[in-house]
């Protein structure tokens, strides 16, 4: 099951960031195979800040929080809970 946020992130990745990527799911490792590269990560961070309205501390842009769409969703949820 996916959440609306997960679906939106997957769409962002497949449409905007890497049109060549297919089969991106919530648990796909985005960073190992380079589906998302370093500039792609920056675009995701900007999108989360602009579209979701959650501020992302640069210290948090790590493997734990950005390796998969699920990790990103968990991170955003945690930030919201803190706000």
């Amino acid at each position, binding site marked *: 099951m996916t959440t609306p946020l997960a679906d939106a992130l997957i769409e962002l990745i497949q449409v905007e960031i890497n049109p*060549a990527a297919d089969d991106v799911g919530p648990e796909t490792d985005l*960073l190992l195979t380079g589906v998302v590269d370093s*500039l*792609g990560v920056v675009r995701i961070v900007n999108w989360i800040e602009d579209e979701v309205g959650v501020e992302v501390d640069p210290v948090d842009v790590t*493997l734990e929080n950005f390796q998969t769409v699920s990790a990103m969703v968990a991170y955003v949820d945690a930030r919201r809970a803190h706000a």
Partner: protein
Amino acid sequence: MTTLAALVRDQATKRPAEPAVVCGDQVLSWADLDTQVAGVAGTLRRLGVARGDRVGILLYKSTRTVVAVHAVLRCGAAYVPLDASAPTSAVAAVVDDCGVEVVITDEPSSRHIATLAAQAPSLRAVLGADDDALGASGLVGAGWASDDVIDEGDGPQVDDLAYVMYTSGSTGRPKGIMHTHRSALAYATRAAALYGLGPDDRLGFLTPIHFDMSTFELFAGPVAGACTVVVPEPYLRLPASLSQLIADQAVTTLYGVPFLYTQLLDRGVLTERDLSAVRWVLYGGEPFPAARLAQWMRLLPECRVSNVYGPAEVNQCTFHHLDAPPATDAVVPIGRCWDGARGRVVDDDGHDCPPGEPGELVIAAPTMMIGYWNRPELTEQSIDVDSDGRRWYHTGDLATEVEPGVFEYVGRRDDQVKVRGHRLELGTVELILAAADGVSHAVAGVVTGAEGETELVAVYVGSAPADELTRWAAERLAPYAVPRRLERVDDLCQTATGKVDRRRVRHELMPELFTHPQEALAR
């Protein structure tokens, strides 16, 4: 003379318990590494690998990557690094060209092994793939863990091939750069001496093994008994995690492309990290924008910084140590040739250019390749032999001799470009794009952002939508060779003879069409 195959064994005798390779929580001592190398080498022998064979390595980075390289060498075979993130067809082209029969992989890296087998008929056995990945491919399989131990009776000789590293060729066919134990060891011993590597060093292993910079950690590390800290691919895309790894692992030496260091500056939260263990930062592959380099040097004032230069064909051959942060508009020289290497700047007729005049840089060095795999005509075009029997490699790079023995890089002679340190031929990218349905002409080029970052882009004429064309390219080219942005145009300017005027497209149209993604992001 010793060979690369002896390096790990020698260190296992000298310092068995000291760390040789670290990846995350995993630490292999020299004795562990030696045992694993002997085991995998034994398994390769059982699979029929003999001296002189070429063995492919298809692995994302881990301790296994280091084990695999040294195991292949211990068999007397040459390793052929394969890009695990590249499309299967690109990997198959290398396997096929080099006549690779056996590939070493592991579960995360072997998703496409059955497709690879279908596209590369020479492949007959795989070490490390699980049964699901092998499927009905008919390949012989073997595991990483086994009781095999190699009988070292038939190890390599110093002039045997050690590795064949592929780079894009101008015709679209990849070319394999052949290095022997002699040339690789010449490089590793000089590098270890020049940068003062020792058993206390911890080398940050940044680059993938299909990239020539990797031979620094793979071989200069074992020459010096230094520990290699493996940096897995995901860290290269997350500067905040990379800086954490460098700090946690007390990395002392880094060798990477400028793009990686500017990423660390911009997003590596370096002020939060203790990088005091880092003593020497080497960069190469492309120029480091001077303002960014100065920023880096001010942030790490105790750390030495060197610009190193050398195409994969010669390993490193020149170096320039920076004494102080450069002025904003300074050109940092690629420096002087190191021990045993000689450089000249020549004109089209092969005559030496006067000092200060640009010409092609040609290099003679003991660290030089013996030639391109199965391409005698290309080898002959690239290497001149002088009357003393000395071999000079034509780098294709334009340089000037700014003071005796000191060179400055000017640009390229042909349409080869460097994008984040990856070398590629624009012609190859254009051939692939133009082969797509609904594309009549395509021109690839590189645009440079405000801070000197480079980005591969392309324009094309035709009806194909840009996203479909990107997908087409991504199925056929390595990720770094896929244009990051594609623009459809109605027409391309032409030369007087009616050919597409690539020069004008690249120098006038492209800068106009493409603002740098960094700037676009900042909007």
